[in-house]
């Protein structure tokens, strides 16, 4: 949930400290000295990021051209990529991953709905704000295990079903049911974060707009449609992008503790398949190639979404 913003990286505002000081104190040497200090202060972080992120990305690309189990390796060119594009399992897993996207409209709808209610200062709105946000601070393994315990064959949900006269359901033995439980966990755990972001958008609406609309006789729906939705467009964009990224890259924890990808491969997601290929089948090359393809897909999706939403905002 610490996923940051990628939408708004605005230009620097105003002259910088060093630039201003340059005006106060004459002498280029002093400016140069200050620039050097700035560089030295930023350098450690940059070096860490270079060695622990940039270098590994390059290495990942190299690994994707190898047949390797981590010990021995052989250069095989683009074969890993060719294998992935032709492997039926990868296609199946990609479709499964798309199924998990069902959670996103639900998360956004619930998030927006509760955000508007909280914005209207319903009784206890501060309490609800924290309670709905609460699952966001829990680990995916905590949430996953709670759902697994709740939905096991002799767990609370089935006990309740029996009590109401239904047959118990073996949720994790049936593909669609297992997906349903994971999606439910995603919604339960995820809508509070979206609510929080949308609420921060609502808080910045100029309340005069509502007063003016009321003078014109606008009802609740009209105010919702013509004031609220346009005002939180940017937050809606952010929430949909973040949730899409999340669905493609961060389901590992849920899948790992809830279903281990099963039954068969019916809940295996792309990120879980990368893990399986690299660390269960010890095919680091193909795992790496899959991770790179996955990264390409989500990068394209993110760019497409933000372009689309920017056009929308410009209308």
């Amino acid at each position, binding site marked *: *949930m*610490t996923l*940051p913003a*990628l939408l*708004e*990286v605005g230009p620097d505002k*105003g002259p*910088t*400290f060093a630039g201003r*000081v340059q005006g106060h104190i004459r002498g280029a040497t002093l400016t140069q000295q*200050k*620039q050097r*200090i*700035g*560089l030295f*202060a*930023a350098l*450690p972080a940059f070096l*860490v*990021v270079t060695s*622990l*992120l940039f*270098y*590994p990305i390059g*290495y*990942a690309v190299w*690994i994707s051209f190898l047949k390797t189990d*981590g010990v021995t390796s052989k250069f095989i060119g683009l074969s890993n990529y060719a294998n992935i594009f032709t492997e039926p399992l990868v296609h199946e897993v990609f479709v499964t991953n798309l199924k998990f996207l069902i959670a996103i409209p639900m998360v956004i709808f619930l998030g927006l709905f509760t955000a508007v209610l909280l914005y*209207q200062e*319903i009784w*206890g709105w501060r*309490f609800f704000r*924290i*309670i*709905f*946000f*609460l699952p966001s*601070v829990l*680990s995916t*393994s*905590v949430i996953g*295990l*709670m759902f*697994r*315990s709740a939905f*096991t064959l002799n767990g*609370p949900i089935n006990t309740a079903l029996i009590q109401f006269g239904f047959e118990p359901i073996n949720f994790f033995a049936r593909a669609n049911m297992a997906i349903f439980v994971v999606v439910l966990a995603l919604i339960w755990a995820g809508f509070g974060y979206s609510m929080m972001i949308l609420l921060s958008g609502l808080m*910045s609406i100029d*309340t005069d707009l509502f007063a003016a609309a009321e003078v014109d006789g606008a009802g609740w729906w009209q*105010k919702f449609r013509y004031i609220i939705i346009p005002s939180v467009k940017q937050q809606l964009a952010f929430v949909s992008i973040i949730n899409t990224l999340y669905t493609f*890259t961060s389901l*590992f*924890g849920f899948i*790992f503790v809830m279903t281990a990808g099963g039954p068969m491969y019916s809940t295996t997601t792309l*990120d879980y398949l*990368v893990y399986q290929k*690299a*660390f269960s089948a010890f095919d680091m090359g193909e795992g790496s190639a899959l*991770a790179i393809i996955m*990264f390409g897909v989500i990068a394209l999706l993110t760019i497409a979404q933000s372009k689309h939403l920017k056009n929308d905002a410009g209308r």
Partner: protein
Amino acid sequence: MRKFSLRTNLLIFLALLSAAITTLYPLFYVAMTSARTLEDYNKNAYGIPKFFTLDSFRILIENYSLGTAARNTVTVVGISLLTAIIFSSFAGFALAKYDFPGSKAMNWSFIAVMLLPSQILIIPIYLLLSKFELVGHLHGLMFVYIGTNIPFGVFFLKSVFSAVPDTILDAARIDGAGFFKSFFKIAVPNAAAGITTLAVLQFLGMWNELLYAYLILPDQSQRLLTPALASIGGRYTTNQPLVAAALCITAAPTLILLAMSSKYLVRGVSTGIGNS
């Protein structure tokens, strides 16, 4: 738009309250299950337990070395968090207030890797760490956490330090304050709330992380809490009180942190999306 009538207020309040119960009741249920005996759970899983016991917690600490796991987690998260914040704040301050050649490029390089998914990094990082014989060592994992948390830290703190007024920094500069003095005496105190927010966010991220922790510390004696929880949960499905106790140990610190710092979390979640 802002207020509801009394009746609508009551109806919506009740609807939201039932939604809130679906969030709170599972947590309450887990806490209660963790304090029952297994026999009691098998006979009466949903009622109030006849007596409360901390046996499951004792078993976890004695037989499943969850105490060690907690200690390892605190060590790794503590050192990684402190290091990442120090590096990020120096860089964030420099990028916000010192316009040095290449600062724009450096800034973009941090932003570029901010959203990198861990799946793309885990394979090369695992191979690199094993080359340096760091797999199975706490500091191997620390390197990973420090590296992956710095980009967002720099991005976040750059915007925090940008809000520190130039006038007071100028004044200090004219009084002869150097980089360190300006940083510690003026920038950090003025940005304390922002730094706290970042620390809370990154603490949660590290504490809850599973993939790196699971793969880089494979030995049971060195495991962190989240992977320990995942494997206990996978293996002991018939002993729900034990699983519940493990859930409590893992989740309690994050819930306590939420209770103590909700102000910072609310702020942290809303900043960074260009709304301020």
